[in-house]
């Protein structure tokens, strides 16, 4: 009995010290899952890149339900992982509660601002990138009608939509933009069937370029658009390879860079709000061998001009989340 106790005690001590001494980083993916071919996958790629370059190890977990957020955060903080990175705005309220309990652990949250001394909040200027792909969409459209399909109806997704519409109107003031949101619950990130039906509905109304900002639902959108031989625009990760010839471009949100940077600095993570945009490469659009035949030199020039204009401050793209309204429809 005593021997048993000793062994148990020793293992427990070992486990504790091992956890504390290693201080490996950890990452928690949101409900979309780390292979959603989009947002979470970008985060996963950033973590993998860090592991490959430094030879370090990290721990990750994919959530299965809403209820696991706080539990997963506490488990990683308790085990001594530092920093703990989480992808997604939905972690905000859990992190708000958990962060003060572990003052020595650094947390990084992507897509949301959490005001705690040991938290880094990374947010992106998605409206800038959406503006650029909007220009491309308007120029590639033959019908003058383009579409937008969002995931869950939240201000962040409206920010994508608003930037996109501004870009479309900048390139073609007479263009029509059809907008749909998949739903109002988190299930809207994971409903490829509904995404496909929405895409078909938009194409029936004349849309020939559709931008999907909808996580796993977007996979269905891209599939339906490719089946119909029209053009789609991917989001977050570079999705050009999914349907070569049918994906005009992808709006890149370098979540991988944010994760990579957080992992690289380790426990000395600088806290506070970090805003990534076009100027620092946190936001971009994708050009590769899969879409080079779809993008004409004129389109490329227009997009590059707009990009330079946004970086220099000449073009101001309205941010939906600054006042929860969009100047154009």
């Amino acid at each position, binding site marked *: 009995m005593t021997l048993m106790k000793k062994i148990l005690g020793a293992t427990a001590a070992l486990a504790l010290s091992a956890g504390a001494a290693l201080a490996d980083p950890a990452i928690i993916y949101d409900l979309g*899952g*780390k*292979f*959603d071919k989009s947002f*979470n996958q970008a985060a996963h790629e950033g973590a993998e890149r860090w592991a490959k370059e430094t030879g370090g190890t990290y721990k990750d977990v*994919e959530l*299965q339900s809403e209820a696991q957020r706080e539990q997963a955060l506490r488990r990683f903080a308790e085990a001594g992982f530092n920093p703990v990175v989480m992808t997604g705005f939905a972690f905000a309220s859990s992190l708000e509660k958990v962060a003060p309990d572990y003052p020595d652990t650094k947390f990084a949250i992507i897509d949301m601002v959490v005001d705690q001394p040991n938290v880094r909040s990374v947010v992106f200027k998605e409206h800038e990138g959406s503006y650029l792909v909007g220009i491309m969409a308007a120029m590639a459209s033959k019908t003058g009608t383009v579409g937008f399909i969002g995931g869950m109806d939240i201000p962040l997704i409206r920010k994508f939509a608003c930037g996109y519409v501004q870009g479309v109107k900048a390139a073609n003031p007479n263009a029509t933009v059809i*907008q*749909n*949101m998949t*739903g*109002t619950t988190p*299930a809207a990130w*994971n*409903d*490829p*069937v*509904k995404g*496909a*039906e*929405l895409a*078909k*509905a938009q194409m*029936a*109304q004349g849309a020939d370029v559709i931008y999907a900002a909808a996580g*796993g639902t977007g*996979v*269905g959108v891209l*599939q339906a658009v490719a*089946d119909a031989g029209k053009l789609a625009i991917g989001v977050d990760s570079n999705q050009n390879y*999914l349907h070569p010839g049918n994906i005009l471009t992808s709006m890149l949100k370098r979540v991988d860079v944010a994760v990579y940077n957080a992992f690289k600095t380790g426990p000395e993570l600088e806290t506070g709000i970090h805003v990534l945009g076009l100027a620092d490469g946190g936001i971009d659009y994708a050009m590769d061998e899969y879409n080079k035949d779809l993008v004409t030199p004129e389109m490329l020039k227009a997009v590059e001009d707009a990009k330079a204009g946004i970086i220099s401050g000449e073009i101001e793209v309205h941010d939906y989340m600054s006042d929860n309204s969009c100047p154009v429809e």
Partner: protein
Amino acid sequence: MEHSQNFVLFLVTLNQMITVSVVLIFAGLAGLFSERSGIFDIGLEGKMLISAFFAAAVSFATGNVWIGVLGGIAASMVFALIHGITSITFRGNQLISGVALNFLASGLTVVLGNAWYRKGGQTPTLSGDARFSEITLPFADALRDVPFLGPIYAEVISGHKPLVYVAFALVPLSWWLLYRTRFGLRLRAVGENPASVDTAGISVIRLRFVAVLIAGVLCGLAGAYLSTSQGAAFGREMTAGRGFIALAALIFAKWRPWYLLMATLLFGLLEAISNLFPNIDVFGLFTIPVQFTQALPYILTVVILAGFVGKAIPPRAGGEPYVKER
């Protein structure tokens, strides 16, 4: 022949109504058979999910979508059998058994998907013969120029994937089976008054197992439709509550096959409308927000349940395990 923009939109709405209601027809009929025999089935969702996964996985492995559909049906029938054993043989609580199956399907699909494909629970994208493609009915092109009816035939009735026609054929078949055959009479009786069926010398247990397994086949078709016909891959939780909407449609239809067809088409129409016209402007007076159209099926079901419009009376012996008198 050129049509006005409004007429084209009308055709598109009807077309979408059909594609989105098919999964509800399959699942609703599954619920119909099961509940008419006295076995509540809240596990429609789980059976559809497991079938969607196996249909996609088997299609991907064999490259033949019909074998994939059989794979989906087989997986769904295994789940139906578990439901039967727990709730008929061991007289367990039917609701709990159904909920457990939903959880099992939700977890199992992701675990197996991760182990086999390492894509976070998704299956690889299906292409070519591993997924269904549209079939054009005879004379669709020839009749296109007939005024009004021609385009409806060509755009709405023709040009769907095979399982769509299977679903619409199953409605009259189910009606015939339930109301015009001896088997159907017994099946309905066993859901109302199992003791009388037993007195007549017919096995209650056997009848209920048959009903539950028929539900398994139909849920299998529903799941396979989602992943190989409407979509082109399995994604985790891709049923997204459609099993529960089907249950709502079943209540709305008062557990009758033809009413069920109407209810599912109505729910499908509402979804098609919310897809095509997110915000409906009523003569410039006010707008109906998309959330209202999306919630309407549930509101209607609650209204029916509350007894305002007709009354929905479930099978009398529903939910109660049958205990033979000793």
